């Protein structure tokens, strides 16, 4: 009988984001408070009467990194996940691990939408015979985790939780279970998304979820500001190599942080609107604290989901208050989507990478574009400049991720001991 669960640590980080093509450049840009939002210059932008004509596109296009064959055989969403996974794996020291002890868990909100819609164009314009045989393996939502599993020989399982914008965080939570349950010693986990395509833009715009600041993209993503008017669509991937602590110590791996616990819940309230009191978000947060044997006062930093939508940001504040109580007043809250935009299914993964870095470097990244803090946001938001966290002692930070459908995930990380 094991009284305490296996400890799980983060030994590898990888990312390709609107701020940079890897972890170092992303982190550097985040600390200086750079916005990644730009006008879309793709040839299709003028074809449709899109109400939104800007986005936070990947800083380094996948085609600049991968071989031509890889680009042809992988949907852009899988391309991003492979790029980030390779970086994370290298960063982890390319651990030697049996295929039967290695897993992958990579979520996406939308999956291979470029492949799906391009194939439909081919079908209509050229007929069924011209639809390529790789269409199905490229469009399926599990193609990213499958590609990574194939490349690294992850034989334990290749999972792909789908929960809209909570997908990446849910995949990381699932990876924790894979290690704790004894199925795996190492899991490549995270999220990916490549949905800067006219159809998702038109669809998100139809529900009035996106900022319409076409004339001023860099100031469009403004979580917690009074004049926020929706999210800015981003793309990319974030990957963590998660590892059983004893496995990491045995091979002398560098440990970025401990992955303490995960909490999950569903609002069961509305298909898109968050439960306004934040009760569901608070349940996930408390679940993470309880299962990690943490107290609210242990938490020093939160990387909030905060997408810059009028309703969502305030609901999250309510949830944080309900989950942490008065301890919330001592918590430095960062909304990094103000810089990266909203990477949908990759958001929770990118933000987990940033949360781990905040703990390792003991500094909370800033939230940009807050000119007038919403009075309903009665929390300590890190604004403009990064803020140093206590230089000594164990620190705990949370990463929140929520998704359409009412999905709530809170992940808890701690400085490496």
């Amino acid at each position, binding site marked *: 009988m094991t009284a305490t669960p296996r400890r799980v640590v983060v030994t590898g980080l990888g990312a390709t984001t609107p701020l940079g093509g890897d972890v170092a450049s992303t982190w550097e840009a985040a600390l200086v408070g750079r916005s990644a939002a730009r006008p879309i210059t793709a040839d299709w932008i003028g074809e449709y009467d899109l109400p939104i004509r800007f986005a936070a596109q990947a800083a380094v296009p996948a085609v600049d990194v991968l*071989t*031509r*064959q890889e680009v*042809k055989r992988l949907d852009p969403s899988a391309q991003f996940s492979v790029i980030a996974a390779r970086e994370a794996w290298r960063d982890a020291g390319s651990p030697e691990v049996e295929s039967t002890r290695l897993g992958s868990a990579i979520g996406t909100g939308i999956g291979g939408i470029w492949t799906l819609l391009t194939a439909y164009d081919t079908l209509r314009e*050229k007929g069924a*015979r*011209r*639809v*390529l*045989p*790789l269409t199905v*393996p490229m469009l399926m939502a599990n193609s990213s985790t499958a590609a990574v599993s194939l490349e690294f020989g992850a034989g334990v399982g290749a999972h792909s939780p789908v929960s809209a914008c909570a997908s990446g965080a849910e995949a990381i939570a699932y990876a924790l279970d894979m290690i704790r349950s004894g199925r795996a010693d190492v899991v490549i986990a995270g999220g990916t998304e490549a949905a800067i395509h006219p159809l998702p833009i038109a669809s998100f715009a139809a529900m009035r979820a996106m900022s319409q600041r076409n004339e001023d993209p860099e100031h469009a993503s403004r979580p917690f500001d009074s004049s926020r008017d929706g999210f800015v669509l981003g793309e990319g991937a974030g990957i963590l190599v998660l590892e059983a602590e004893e496995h990491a110590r045995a091979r002398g791996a560098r440990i970025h942080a401990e992955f303490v616990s995960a909490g999950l819940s569903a609002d069961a309230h509305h298909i898109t609107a968050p439960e306004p009191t934040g009760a569901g978000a608070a349940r996930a947060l408390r679940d993470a604290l309880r299962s990690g044997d943490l107290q609210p006062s242990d938490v020093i930093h939160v990387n909030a989901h905060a997408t810059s939508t009028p309703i969502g940001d305030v609901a999250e504040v309510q949830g944080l208050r309900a989950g942490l109580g008065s301890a919330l007043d001592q918590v430095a809250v960062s909304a990094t989507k103000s810089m990266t935009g909203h990477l949908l299914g990759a958001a929770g993964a990118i933000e987990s990478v940033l949360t781990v870095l905040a703990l390792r470097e003991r500094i909370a990244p800033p939230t940009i574009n807050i000119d007038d803090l919403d009075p309903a946001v009665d929390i300590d938001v890190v604004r403009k400049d990064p803020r140093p966290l206590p230089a000594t002692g164990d620190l705990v930070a949370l990463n929140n991720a929520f998704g359409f459908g009412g999905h709530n995930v809170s992940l808890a990380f701690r400085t490496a001991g």
Partner: protein
Amino acid sequence: MASEQEILSGLAEIINEETGLPTDSVELDKSFTEDLDIDSLSMMTIVVNAEEKFSVRIPDEDVKNLKTVGDAVSYIAQAQG
């Protein structure tokens, strides 16, 4: 109408694009499966692209008889004729 040499080089480009194999490794006597290590999914992709490039139709029942690059070149040349 393309010559057999033109068909071979066109096919080599398609195969290179799909698999990354150098174009000069695509020779008439090479077997798609044994020598070039092309799986059935890649073979179908190559067929779709060849049909488009050479304006021919290669029915599935004929694809299985195309064992070598030379088989495919002859087939396409005949189908064009």
